[in-house]
């Protein structure tokens, strides 16, 4: 595809007194959902602020919907829906008032869709925002972003603080956006189950650096735990692409991020079991490995 990437970050650096985001590069193509995953303090929110033009990079390039950020943020923002969990609506006003307000600013506002979302999210237009529960507040903010029908949604922890039912309501709605293949979503989350389910591509960051970024199926295909039983006195050959190796007597557990049938053939008859890994297991293993390699 030659279509303009919806998000392009190239070699971005942003330094603070106690934290530096270093050499961050990532791409989001139209029609895709990117899960942006990292532990607390990894730099997710900083990266998102850079994408939104709320911060200027010290070095590198940020382009969103083809517009250079932060210079052309006004143009880009017409077509970006941004939601972060620290957003607060006006407590004394109703959700309906907020809807009219947003509709008056953004010509793309879809009143029909907004109405449908109110119903699906179990919200009430005539209710004052101050009376909403925290989960309802999150859904209200999402509704205001979704009903603008932006081409790009940037969501900072959209499902945090939601109960399981509300989380599913929100995830269903996000997937519905993707029926249109010119729209895209970047969302950050700690919830690897949500990320594993709905993301097309996944980016891990830790301590201000990119750990890994690739398409989800590729991630899941590459990682395996291999359980072996090795007779005493047998030396294990040196293997490339091992993320970890734990030896307990005759029992050896290998973790690899470059699994292939060749590797299995190479290890031979000592292999007892091979397990796929969940995204959460992959995430934790790759963060630890990355810290080890970087000597952090």
């Amino acid at each position, binding site marked *: 595809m030659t279509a303009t990437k919806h998000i392009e970050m190239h070699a971005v650096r942003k330094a603070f007194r106690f934290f530096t985001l270093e050499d961050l590069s990532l791409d989001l193509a139209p*029609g*895709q*959902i990117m899960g942006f995953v990292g532990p607390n303090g990894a730099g997710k929110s900083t990266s998102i602020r850079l994408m939104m033009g709320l911060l200027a990079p010290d070095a590198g390039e940020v382009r969103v919907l083809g517009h250079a950020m932060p210079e052309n943020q006004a143009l880009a923002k017409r077509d970006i829906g941004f939601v972060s969990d620290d957003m607060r609506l006006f407590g004394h006003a109703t959700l309906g008032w907020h809807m009219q307000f947003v509709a008056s600013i953004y010509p793309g506002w879809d009143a029909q869709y907004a109405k449908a979302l109110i119903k699906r999210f179990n919200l009430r237009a005539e209710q004052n925002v101050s009376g909403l529960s925290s989960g309802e507040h999150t859904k209200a903010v999402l509704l205001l972003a979704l009903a603008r029908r932006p081409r790009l949604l940037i969501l900072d922890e959209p499902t945090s603080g939601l109960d399981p039912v509300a989380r*599913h309501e929100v*995830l*269903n709605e996000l*997937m*519905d956006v*993707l*029926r249109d*293949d010119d729209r895209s979503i970047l969302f950050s989350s700690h919830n690897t*189950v949500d990320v594993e*389910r*709905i*993301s*097309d*591509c996944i980016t891990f960051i830790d301590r201000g650096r990119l750990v890994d970024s690739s*398409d*989800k*199926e590729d991630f*899941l295909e590459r990682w395996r735990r291999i359980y072996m039983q090795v007779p005493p006195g047998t030396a294990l050959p040196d293997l490339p692409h091992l993320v970890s190796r734990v030896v307990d007597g005759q029992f050896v557990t290998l973790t690899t991020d470059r699994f292939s049938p060749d590797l299995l053939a190479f290890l031979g008859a000592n292999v007892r079991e091979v397990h*796929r890994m969940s995204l959460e297991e992959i995430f934790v293993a790759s963060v630890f490995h990355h810290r080890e390699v970087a000597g952090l």
Partner: protein
Amino acid sequence: MFDSELSIHCIHSMYSGINISQTDARPMYLQIMEQIRARIAVGDWPSGRELPSIRALAAALSVSVITVKRAYLDLESEGVIVTRHGKGSFVADVNGLAGELQEEKLEEHLAAAAGTGRQLGLTPEDLAERLRRAIRNLDKK
């Protein structure tokens, strides 16, 4: 009243019968493949039937587009479905995998019948005769 309650469960999506289980250790794309194969094998999805578009199925199941795409690609390389660019994906001809699946099922049933026959001490001729009788009974119906 009762009617509307029922419909609540059905309107969610056309393909809500396909499920992704988080406790199933198999990857999501394999779960989707298996459930599509099952629909084809029992004839619910006959050959030539158009499959939901990748994006529509992804939205209905709330799973990523790339997961459904992977399932469709693998089903296509198995010959279960055919994808025509710009037109969509269709269940392949009966002579393709739908037939093969039926074939596999037949083998299974025959093996089971042979096993039971041996337990009962039937000769191969007895068993063949019983099969002929079963076919005659089917024709009578």
